[in-house]
């Protein structure tokens, strides 16, 4: 099992996201995360998919994506030359014992405290998925009340630009 990051350029048309996710369901792919959003060109959206699987799953996923009519570009991003980011919003129990550790850990991870009430502290963390994992790990014993991850967005490093 390996982890793959795949970038997909799709036309902004009726039902595109449903076509992509429907294909995953149909072919039995197990996706770790999927993000979708605007690009430099208003006619296209960019989907970033992370997948844990073997080489067979990777090859099939890419080839099946290429078959979808509204999909324009499918690219497997090489880990070494790719910048990955994810955003986490997390609410942790605010207690006298907890408070310092939350603030300290947030500080070390360059995270922001965005809300602070008598019950909870809400932190915004941006970073590579492993940083997010580590932050969550640290918060677990302190009592996570609620959290939400955006899933990975990824771009290749500045020299590599997707050929459109």
């Amino acid at each position, binding site marked *: 099992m390996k982890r793959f990051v795949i970038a997909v350029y799709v036309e902004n048309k009726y*039902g595109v996201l449903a076509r992509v996710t429907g294909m995953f369901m149909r072919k039995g792919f197990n996706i770790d995360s999927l993000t979708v959003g605007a690009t430099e060109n208003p006619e296209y959206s960019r989907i970033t998919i992370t997948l844990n699987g073997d080489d067979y799953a990777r090859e*099939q996923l890419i*080839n099946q994506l290429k078959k979808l009519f509204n999909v324009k570009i499918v690219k497997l991003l090489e880990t070494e030359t790719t910048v990955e980011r994810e955003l986490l919003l997390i609410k942790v129990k605010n207690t006298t014992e907890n408070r310092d550790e939350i603030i300290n850990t947030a500080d070390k991870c360059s995270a922001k405290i965005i809300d602070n009430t008598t019950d909870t502290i809400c932190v915004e963390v941006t970073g590579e998925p492993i940083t997010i994992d580590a932050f969550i790990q640290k918060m677990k014993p302190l009592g996570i009340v609620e959290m939400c991850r955006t899933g990975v967005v990824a771009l290749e490093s500045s020299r590599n630009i997707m050929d459109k």
Partner: protein
Amino acid sequence: MPTEYREKMTGAQIIIETLIEQGVTDVFGYPGGQVLDIYDALYEAQGRINHVLTAHEQGAAHAADGYSRVTGKVGVVIATSGPGATNLVTGIATAMLDSIPMVAITGNVSSSLIGKDSFQEINITGVTMPITKHNYFVTDVNELADTIREAFQIAKSGRPGPVLVDVTRDVQAAFGDYTKKEIVEPFLQDIASDDDIDEAVKLINESQRPYIYIGGGAAGAGMTKAIMEFAEKIDGYIGCSFMGLSAFPNSYNRFLGMQGMHGEYASSMANKAADLIIGIGVRFSDRATGNVDKYAQKAKIIQLDTDISEINKNVKVDVGIIGDIVSSFSRIAERCNKNKHPQWQVLVEALVEDSKMILETVEKNVGEKMTPKKIFDVINDVKDKDTIIATDVGQHQMWTAQFAKFERTRRFASSGGLGTMGYGLGAAIGAQIASGDRVVLITGDGSFGMNLNELATAVSYNVPVVIVLMNNGSLGMVRQWQTIFYEKRYSSTVLDRKTDFVKLTEAFGAKACRVKTIDEFRQAFETAMQTDGPYLIDVVIDINESVLPMLPPGGSIDDIIVSRKLGG
């Protein structure tokens, strides 16, 4: 654009004009509330485009499919919203699984009523997303013509398939511009790399026992002659998947027939004996390979396919040639060395002998009994090279695959991938209307019962289809599996119905007879083949007739079952 070529038309008129512009001469369909405008435009276009009214939308979809299978043209079907559209679903899925080009046009409720569970509203684009190559929901009349053109383009490009265009009623009624355009050309396909071609040529030149395995892709691409010449050149043998049937004349001495679960022993064994398998437009489906772990262990595999996702999907191949199979194949063929493999020839000839012996074992001691083999001997004897054979799904379908003799391409219409019982009659009607040639529908009492309402269509349009109903009073194929794998626990497979198919057919207005001996069958079949219009022959066969040989599911050629004494 010069203004004289531009016209204001309603959306419905634009649909029909665009169909005519794209070379469509026949459409199949069924009217309804949300396609009233389209049917009005069809009424107006009488003489320029022919509409065939079926008894049910499913029959119309199968007819469009059969139409396409025998001509290679894009089949077109029209249905109304809601139930009309959902009735197309099985027909569209059938076309999808067998890569048949089809454009389905459905009406939907007006834009203002969409999403409100309005009367006969269904989100058919959502329903058909997994079973179409692509689909469209059109809400702007000015996008209608180009959308339909694109639908044709997608349907016939690369690996063909069905495309659905859903048009809201207000769009059908709205006025828009229409400018006539040329028939769309398929998209350009990938060109295989020189390295891959080199690698394939190398493997072929090194091979001592080459086997060419062809599927629906090769059959549909008109590659018969090129593949025959190639087989002669490299001294190889050819076998096919179910979808490859009718691509090669059965009389051709290098053609070993269909391989797989109910295939010829010789072609299935050739996979095992070969040192190289050259797959052309074929997906190495489970029914054709058996257990993939045991499949062709000694062979290297080259796979040519236009669909990139087919390479390495079902079996791991040594060389995948992606792109237009016709051009890739000719590049490979012209560079391969002329070769002779006398040892391979001896081996294959022995396999063919074994194949014949297995068949003889199956047919041994049958005496006067009317067996499927004997029925096909008569059919092959009486039909001519242009006769089309359509089937439903079940034992009769596999008997057709085993025994029917084809002499030319595109003479076979049968649901291979989806295995749709009830496919046959609609497809037979479509195939006949497309070709003008006589169609023999081989069916069973189970399958025929599913969509026999299309007898009404066959009678209305006086379609010369000879229906050979192999009547064993059971769902024979499922029953056969129950015999072999479920200790004869015949759960819901013995029909024991009181349907009189002769009277039933007569009630629809067609001719029919019942036969119990092979002599009666010959006489009836000869008469039927001379009859103008539909003719049903109710052929009473033994409930214990089985499709043999058979490879059990998940097994390999080593697990072949040849014994006749099953239900006995």
